[in-house]
């Protein structure tokens, strides 16, 4: 089965979404991430969506779910690299991502996660 790879970087997990995901692939990623967070006790998840040229309600919901799920599992999620056109479209679509942190790029996202962990 087709899968989106999850990379481990120390205490964080990094997911780079590079394909135009069909719905099942997004759902599989959600499940895989939950399983990996639990198995590795990761403290943070970075989801790099800089290659995504659109985020619709389904992918938006997946991002929301991953973020909520990781919180329950004591990990933080940061979504990085959202293209400006995608951000504008999401707002107009009416999809707000409450509780989802975002950062401009992976480096900044990583900093954000470290700050969060240090503050705890």
């Amino acid at each position, binding site marked *: 089965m087709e899968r989106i790879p999850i990379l481990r970087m120390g205490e964080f997990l990094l997911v780079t979404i590079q394909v135009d995901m069909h*719905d099942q692939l997004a759902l599989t990623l959600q499940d895989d991430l939950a399983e990996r967070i639990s198995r590795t006790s990761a403290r943070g998840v970075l989801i790099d969506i800089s290659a995504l040229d*659109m985020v619709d309600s389904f992918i938006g919901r997946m991002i929301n779910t991953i973020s909520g799920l990781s919180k329950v599992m004591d990990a933080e999620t940061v979504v990085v690299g959202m293209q400006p056109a995608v951000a504008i479209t999401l707002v*107009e*679509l*009416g*999809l707000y991502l409450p509780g989802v942190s975002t950062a401009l790029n992976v480096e900044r996202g990583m900093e954000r996660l470290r700050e969060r962990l240090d503050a705890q």
Partner: protein
Amino acid sequence: MRPERTGSQPVRSEQDVVLARQVARKLAVECGLRLVDQTKLVTAASELARNTVIYGGGGDMDWEVVEEGSRKGLRLVFRDEGPGIADVKLAMTDGWTSGNGLGLGLTGTRRLVDEFSLESAPGVGTRVTICKWN
């Protein structure tokens, strides 16, 4: 208004939703839509294609490159012969879903495009037409 080019694309599976997005993107670029408008149209197409698959039991996306004076636009029609929508007004309410969605697809799509029309009859099917101009 002179139709320049038309075509049709099956929308029957999740993979077809991805294909519909890709076709919409290619045509939007050809129509000279700027990046933000391309993205809006592609996102709208994704929402409607998914509805066609999930609720409509599959259908088709017809596309047409339209011209009006010096303006170019892309018109997409999503049609299916599924159960139809009993209460169109309700379906067009932000946040209303009969399934597991967010109920954003139809209302959000209307905000993303320049023209939007929804025709549906129970037992006959659903037809959603959208258009975006450059």
